């Protein structure tokens, strides 16, 4: 593998590591699992590029696709439900990372717990639109839907998350 390839991978890793980690983190029950799946996503990306560089037109979309498959495999292999309660999060992930301290930990936990109870499609578009603040066109590309369909999907996703939060008592303001 050439130094040029390593350099390109290094740049891509720096660019997307936080995004992919967050994407996985909001779908699994612990920081360790998020770390394992995120690193696996980048290893698979490396292997795919090495085998056939031409198949990857959009690195971001490809990485999200790998991450999404890894999360699905994780729950399927372990026979676990994707429903994660707030208690599970406390149990599984008692020590937030240094970066997490920059935001309100209770908000993160609450969002995570409620996200666990909404549809996968909804989780994806909420993360992409509001956490990563991707433009509609990119989300349309990631989902394979039209921008109009994505708008509808985001609207429903947000409504679903709000309902979950309100049913559980909402945020402390």
């Amino acid at each position, binding site marked *: *593998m050439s130094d040029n390839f*390593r350099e390109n*991978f*290094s740049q891509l*890793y*720096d660019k997307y*590591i*936080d995004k992919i*980690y*967050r994407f996985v*983190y*909001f779908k699994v029950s612990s920081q360790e699992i*998020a*770390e394992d799946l*995120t*690193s696996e996503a*980048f*290893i698979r990306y*490396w292997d795919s590029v*090495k085998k056939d560089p031409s198949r990857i037109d959009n690195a971001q979309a490809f990485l999200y696709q790998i991450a999404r498959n890894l999360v699905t495999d994780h729950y399927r292999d372990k026979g676990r439900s994707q429903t994660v309660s707030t208690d599970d999060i406390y149990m599984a992930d008692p020590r937030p*990372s*240094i*970066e*997490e301290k*920059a*935001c*309100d930990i209770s*908000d*993160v936990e609450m*969002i995570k717990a409620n996200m666990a109870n909404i549809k996968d499609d909804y989780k994806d578009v*909420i993360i992409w639109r*509001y*956490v*990563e*603040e991707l433009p509609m066109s990119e989300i349309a590309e990631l989902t394979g839907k039209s921008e109009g369909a994505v708008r509808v999907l985001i609207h429903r996703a*947000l409504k679903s*998350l*709000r309902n979950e*939060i*309100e049913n559980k008592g*909402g*945020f402390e*303001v």
Partner: protein
Amino acid sequence: MTEKDLIKKLQGMKEVKPSKDWVVLTKQRILEEQQEVKYSRFNEYIAVFKAVLYHKYAFASLVAVAVVIGTFGFSLNSMPGDKLFTLKKITENSRAVFVSEENQVRYDLNLVNKRLDDLTAIAESNSVRNLASAIEETQSSAAKAADSLREVDEDIVAQVREIEEKTDKIKALGVEIGDSEKELNTALSKLVENQIQSLEEKSLTEEQEDKLEEIKADYEAENYSSALEKILLLSQ
């Protein structure tokens, strides 16, 4: 909580990040692992090379055996006068050891036929260098076959007929095989003569007597394969 509040909270989630240590270490690990894969392939080649060196005596023996087998195999296509023909003869002589006494004459006549094939090929390709050796080898095999020629059966008659045809073909190519033909003819002549004597001692029908006369005529004309064929028919 309003939608606006929720969106604001979600935007705050951007602060969720993996630890910097983990990010750095993971990147380093992936790059190192891929480097190891690259090196491990190189190491596999080195390991094979080392294994060859470590077992050099065993490999040397195997290579020597392979060379010997290959050389003997290759020698089977050689012609009299070629360097590898000696190996071909060793192979043929080794086979002859395992031939039973009753099959010896068939084996020897078969060798005469093979030498005549060699001689024909050499004559046709005008390979002067091999010609003398080919004639010598034909003479030698014919002498050996003549020594073991004691009886008559269908196989022997067929082989003798083949030898006569090939001899005629070689003569037509302008090659004189000399003593080879003479040795074999003498042996065939003696064989036919013995068979005629044996038939003369038996009481024959009129028809058989006529056949015996034909055999004698073939014998006089040195047409031994024809004579032997008729002897065979008469004996059955």
